[in-house]
């Protein structure tokens, strides 16, 4: 019998339904794996007792034939989702001791569907980063290493703990959030699948806010089907989030066919960037060939404002962050460092509570919103953002989906790029444009770098058309046959 942790989410669901396995043994197998893999630092908070009690309740419902969509399936939650009675840190010192008295809508949906909580995963502080190195709770180690080289590599970020947990077979699937690539880039670095749905598909209520016009929850899995299944349970309209869309959630998993015959797939010329490794360029070409072989038409397209997406993002995201993070003042929750008066208490609390990258972004955001600079920076960025959206609108007149690499490199070493913020920001060069446009996008593991590390391909779809993204993703998954595993995993 296959190890329980080697099953995918959908396969485990089938075995639970047939009573071949129990939710309790499935949870225990994952708790054991979590304990063995503590060296990865993928979790900030483990919830083993909660997992076993949720699994027991799931077993009872399975026996009674009352199973929900994710009944008895152990998953991990990015520690940016507020969970009632379970510590929520956002990877920051400033939320020390914070235990929410409410449940985020997305996690509420997951528990209502019968999912089992393994714990809260590590992340870049306030989801600001592409390496998971800015977490107050320490960096996460990617379960992958280069062959013959045991140096620790980053899992990507910001949802690095979630991606590492799924890749290391600690969790069947995991939630993430994506503001500029925080699901897709770690999915690519860890050799798994990750999807960011259309902005508004999942409720943001109860998710610690970073940049509200960009933040969107999404899903990690080891297959396209698993990822679709988790997303289906997460998504849905929520009156508590005014940007959540009042649209029905499609049954993506049932509709999933992998058929791309007749689809037009765009290849944007502007994504051929200088210095892109040959393996990534070749993989991108292979991806186009695979889709063509399945009957898709490959179309060269242009997204002329692509190079301006990152600088636009690094005005809009910090501006919104500086406003959202104003709430951390040491009065209502988390850390408080007393000063000689109220202003000094605010300043000392925030100086001690925020890490270097968060402070940098708050200060950039404060500056671009300050009197005299608002028009030159913030308003300008909002105008360029519209240009970027218009690029995609024009492209989607000609194509049904867009194929690009997910990231410009494979996973790098822990500690690299920390002294050069702009070099770190360039990790997200291929993921930020679709974030700015609010479009659904997913990363599918498709090959290995020259160093034997996983590489991902990204598919971007029209707003609300996750189905085409998933189907094209499944076609890539089948053609790529990506079966490599992190070193040490069988």
């Amino acid at each position, binding site marked *: 019998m296959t190890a329980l942790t080697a099953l995918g989410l959908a396969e485990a669901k089938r075995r639970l339904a047939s009573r071949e396995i129990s939710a309790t043994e499935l949870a225990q197998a994952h708790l054991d794996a979590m304990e063995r893999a503590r060296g990865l630092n993928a979790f900030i908070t483990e919830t083993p007792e909660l997992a076993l009690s949720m699994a027991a309740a799931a077993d009872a419902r399975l026996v009674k034939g009352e199973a929900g969509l994710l009944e008895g399936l152990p998953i991990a939650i990015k520690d940016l989702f507020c969970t009632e009675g379970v510590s929520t840190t956002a990877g920051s010192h400033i939320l020390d*001791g*914070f235990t*929410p*008295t409410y449940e985020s809508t997305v996690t509420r949906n997951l528990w209502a569907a019968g999912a089992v909580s393994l714990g809260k995963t590590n992340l870049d502080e306030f989801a600001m980063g592409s390496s998971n190195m800015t977490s107050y709770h320490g960096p996460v180690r990617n379960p992958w290493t280069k062959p013959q080289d045991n140096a620790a590599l980053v899992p990507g970020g910001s949802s690095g703990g979630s991606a590492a947990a799924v890749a290391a077979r600690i969790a069947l699937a995991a939630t993430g959030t994506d503001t500029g690539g925080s699901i897709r880039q770690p999915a690519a670095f860890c050799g798994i699948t990750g999807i960011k749905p259309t*902005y*508004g598909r999942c409720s943001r209520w109860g998710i610690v806010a970073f940049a509200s*016009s960009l933040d969107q929850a999404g899903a990690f899995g080891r297959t396209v089907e698993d990822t679709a299944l988790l997303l289906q349970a997460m998504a849905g309209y929520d*009156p508590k989030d*005014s*940007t959540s*869309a*009042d649209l029905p959630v499609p049954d993506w998993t049932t509709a999933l066919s992998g058929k791309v015959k007749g689809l037009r797939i765009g290849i944007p010329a502007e994504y051929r960037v200088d210095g892109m490794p040959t393996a990534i360029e070749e993989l991108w070409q292979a991806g186009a060939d695979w889709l063509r072989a399945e009957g898709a038409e490959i179309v060269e397209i242009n997204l002329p*404002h692509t*190079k*301006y997406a990152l*600088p*636009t993002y*690094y*005005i809009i995201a910090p501006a919104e962050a*500086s406003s959202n993070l104003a709430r951390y*003042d*040491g*009065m*209502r*929750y*988390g*850390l*408080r460092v007393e000063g000689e*008066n*109220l*202003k*000094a208490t*605010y*300043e*000392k609390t*925030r*100086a001690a509570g*925020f890490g270097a990258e968060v*402070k*940098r972004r*708050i*200060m*950039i955001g*404060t*500056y671009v919103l*300050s009197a005299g600079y608002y028009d030159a920076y913030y*308003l*300008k960025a*909002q*105008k*360029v*953002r*519209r*240009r970027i*959206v218009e690029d995609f609108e024009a492209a989607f007149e000609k194509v049904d989906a867009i194929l690009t690499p997910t990231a410009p490199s494979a996973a790098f070493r822990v500690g690299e790029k920390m002294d050069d*913020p*702009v070099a770190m920001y360039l990790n997200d060069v291929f993921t930020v444009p679709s974030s*700015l446009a*609010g479009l659904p996008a997913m990363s599918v593991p498709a090959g290995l770098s020259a160093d034997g590390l996983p590489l991902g391909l990204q598919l971007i779809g029209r*707003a609300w058309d996750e189905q085409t993204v998933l189907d094209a993703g499944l076609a890539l998954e089948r053609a790529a046959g990506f079966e490599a595993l992190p070193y040490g995993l069988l």
Partner: protein
Amino acid sequence: MSLDKATVRRISELARIEVPDADLEPLAQELSAILGWIEQLGEVETGDVAPLRSVMPITHPWREDVVDDGNQQAAITENAPSSHDGYFVVQRVVE
């Protein structure tokens, strides 16, 4: 755009983040490098472009203006570093 130490000091005060004097110069350099990189946006012609504020055109639903939640005082103050009698305790701001 290059930021000087005085500007960094002003931003840190607006952002309510204490910055030691010794950190002003390195921060000024870091922030200047980021802003310098951002400045390439000046190349984009945006004369008559309307700024994009909401990425998905969603019509917001109307609802009755009624109280549907409340009486959560204990839950709201539960995580406070200091609270008393259902209130947050803060430092004196009016002498």
